[in-house]
């Protein structure tokens, strides 16, 4: 059950040992003899949000694609929901991906399908009735405040609207894990804030485990320092010196994981690269 504070804000839950949803064990991958990620190990617990930071081109999107089996590691093991996906056949992965929602960098909406069919794609594949699909798609679109775009095509939407539809597509089946690949990349500050608010809403209202890739520090710190208020339907700043306990950070640099810890640990890190990155 969702714990809601008296003022409508979802209260941050104290951090307790959780069953891991994603486990990376010494994962390495390279392309054309060039190493991209080396010996990456980390865990993502149930209901947790991990924000993956790092400069552009460091392999953040690659790591995300490893998470849902779109790429396979050269070495190491990856577990998702306790299953070793690095050893699974592609055929079996399709089934597992039903429990994972992915928001791609540019939205990756199917340009020949309407917003309804894009958001309801997975439901259409499962041959669910048309009425049920429309109901669930409308519900998901309402979550991202885009229910008026049901019959539009992606080309008729702005960049921010496409990103919001992509979020609706990722959450329509109530997945247990959501992967966000630079959800605010290339968007203006106001639209970015709207998207971050939706990511936060999903974290604080549905308590879905998530891995958020971003190179925008501002977005990362907003996620760590704010919570979603269901009464006002807005995000609000947490009390001073308090950060969301379910949100923690990972940082990549030159193919290595150079940081894995809480917001406070990141801010007080003495590592020269991290200090320079967050300054």
């Amino acid at each position: 059950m969702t714990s809601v504070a008296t003022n409508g804000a979802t209260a941050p839950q104290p951090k307790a040992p959780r069953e891991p949803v994603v486990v990376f064990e010494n994962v390495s991958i390279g392309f054309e003899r060039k190493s991209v990620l080396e010996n990456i190990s980390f865990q993502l617990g149930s209901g947790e949000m991990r924000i993956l930071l790092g400069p552009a081109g460091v392999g953040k999107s690659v790591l995300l694609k490893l998470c849902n089996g779109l790429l396979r590691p050269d070495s190491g093991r990856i577990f998702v929901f306790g299953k070793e996906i690095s050893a699974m056949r592609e055929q079996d992965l399709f089934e597992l991906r039903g429990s994972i929602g992915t928001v791609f960098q540019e939205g990756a909406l199917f340009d020949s399908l309407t917003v309804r069919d894009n958001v309801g794609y997975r439901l259409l594949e499962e041959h669910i009735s048309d009425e049920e699909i429309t109901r669930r798609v409308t519900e998901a679109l309402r979550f991202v405040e885009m229910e008026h775009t049901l019959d539009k095509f992606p080309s008729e939407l702005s960049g921010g609207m496409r990103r919001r539809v992509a979020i609706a597509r990722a959450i329509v089946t109530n997945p247990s894990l959501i992967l966000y690949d630079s959800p605010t990349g290339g968007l203006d500050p106001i639209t970015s804030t709207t998207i971050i608010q939706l990511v936060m809403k999903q974290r604080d209202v549905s308590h879905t485990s998530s891995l958020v890739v971003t190179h925008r520090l501002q977005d990362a710190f907003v996620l760590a320092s704010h919570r979603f208020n269901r009464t006002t339907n807005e995000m609000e700043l947490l009390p001073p010196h308090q950060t969301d306990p379910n949100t923690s950070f990972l940082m990549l640099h030159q193919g290595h994981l150079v940081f894995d810890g809480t917001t406070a640990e990141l801010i007080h890190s003495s590592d020269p690269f991290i200090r320079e990155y967050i300054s």
Partner: protein
Amino acid sequence: MALATIDAAAKRGVTAVQDYAALSGRALGNLFRRPFYRDDIFLQADIIGVGSLPIVILTGFFLGGVLALQSASTLTQFGAAAFTGELVSFSMIKEIGPVVTALMVSGRNASGMASELGSMIVTEQIDAMRALGTDPLKKLVMPRVVATIVMLFFLVILSDGVGILGGGLVSVTMLGQDATQYFHTSWQSLQYPDIIQGLVKPVFFGFIIATIGCFYGLRTRGGTQGVGRSTTQAVVVSSILIIVCDFLISRFLIGIFGR
């Protein structure tokens, strides 16, 4: 340095053949696995088959006509102009009909498939499809392969018919030949092995067009420029493979049937 370049190119070539074989094998294997995308097959059959009708009819008709013109001028020298119909029907059914129809369909559809799938690759739509739990080889490749094979088969029959008709029209109106004689010799000279040869080829050609188009589309790298490159490669490679395959099938079937 030169050796390393040759080595790398050879490895790329072998890998490409291996990937193509894997894609073709999985596309065929998907025919027998659920879900079966029947609606997608009909949609592709409409795009590939019905959409190609005008070019196939036009090229078939004029090829038949030009065959009649050219063969009649040679046959007249030997006093054998009466065999024009036989020559046109023979050439159309065994060679020209299947090969030219396949080349036309390849130019129109292999390029279309490569550019469509290539665009989906560069905009991450294929990754999105996989992430949503759908196998792109089943959803996108299998319907295209089935639709191309089935529709090319019928397009070739249509092209053969229209070609013989075009040849007849030229023979009668321009060369002053007798219509009954033309169609009689066209029909009488044909034997089952000739028809089998003409109908086996489009099955292989259809498979080549669809698998090559999808293969190059799914291998697209490097943005819009990459899409253009894949499109060109798909048309070039499928055209070459059609002609090479035509020779091999002809040699094999002539070996079996003796004609």
